[in-house]
């Protein structure tokens, strides 16, 4: 009975959610050249909140993996992509 009570208490206790990294897909216009798109990687790698960068030339997309608990708001993201030489046409976010 005592064990059952402990199990119920543990189950009812609030559990802190583990920090979940976010995957950001940025739709970009003008993304046609690997050599030029290195600018995106160079800009993103300067940041502490980005843990991974992948460029998909076929889809015209940039995929960013954010660090757990990190946030990169749309305005900052658009500025980074614009400074890299491209235009953002859409941003999609999902937790990994």
């Amino acid at each position, binding site marked *: 009975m005592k064990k059952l009570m402990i199990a119920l208490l543990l189950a009812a206790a609030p559990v802190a959610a583990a920090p979940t990294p976010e995957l950001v897909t940025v739709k*970009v*216009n*003008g*993304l*046609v*050249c*690997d*050599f*030029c*798109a*290195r*600018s995106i990687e*160079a*800009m993103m790698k*300067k940041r502490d909140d980005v843990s991974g960068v*992948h*460029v*998909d*030339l*076929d889809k*015209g997309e940039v995929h960013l993996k954010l660090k757990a608990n990190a946030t990169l708001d749309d305005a900052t993201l658009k500025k980074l992509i*614009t*400074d*890299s*030489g*491209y*235009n953002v*046409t859409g941003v999609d976010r999902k937790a990994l």
Partner: protein
Amino acid sequence: MRIWLAALGAALLTTAAGARPVSWPGGVTWMQELDPGTGSALLHYTPNRHYSVGGRYLRMREEDANLAGAQATWLVKRWNMEGAQANLYLSGLAGAGWRDGESARPGGFVDAQADWENRRVMLMGMARLTRIDRLGTTDMQLGRIGWAPYEGDYGDAHLWLFAQLKRDSGMADEVQPALVARLFYRKLLVEAGVTDRGGLILNSQIRF
């Protein structure tokens, strides 16, 4: 349509060996060019996405003349389209020019460059006016049309094949058609080509 026509017009006027004379904010680029008429080296820094500044040394091989100075390049306009990009640049160099064994005189150049590309076709054009006090004024135009035999993914080695036409009023052989192959991998770009008279073209570019 107007963008297409502008890019095509620029390409017909001329062509540029260098890709992206303005890099990303904080980026440093080393560019080297060699053909039968000229050799040059440019190191530039990009403070922001609109312009770059640097230093260039230019050797006019037939005239045994040299030009060195500070260069600024302005990205006048970039058109980012779905599946394509076009750019218009203006550059200027101010410095000194000299013929071998002679004293240096004020000199410089101004040029305009334009390009349009998608993943399989590239059009590039450039026109330059060079002036060195007492040595005179020359004008050069260069145009390229390029084709990528395959669409590489990000991180692959990419190949482009160009047909190039260069006209330089400072050269005895004013008009030089050429075929040039461009290979780039990550931040390194190398070009090798040959003119109709067997002259060698070797260009490279690396970004830091």
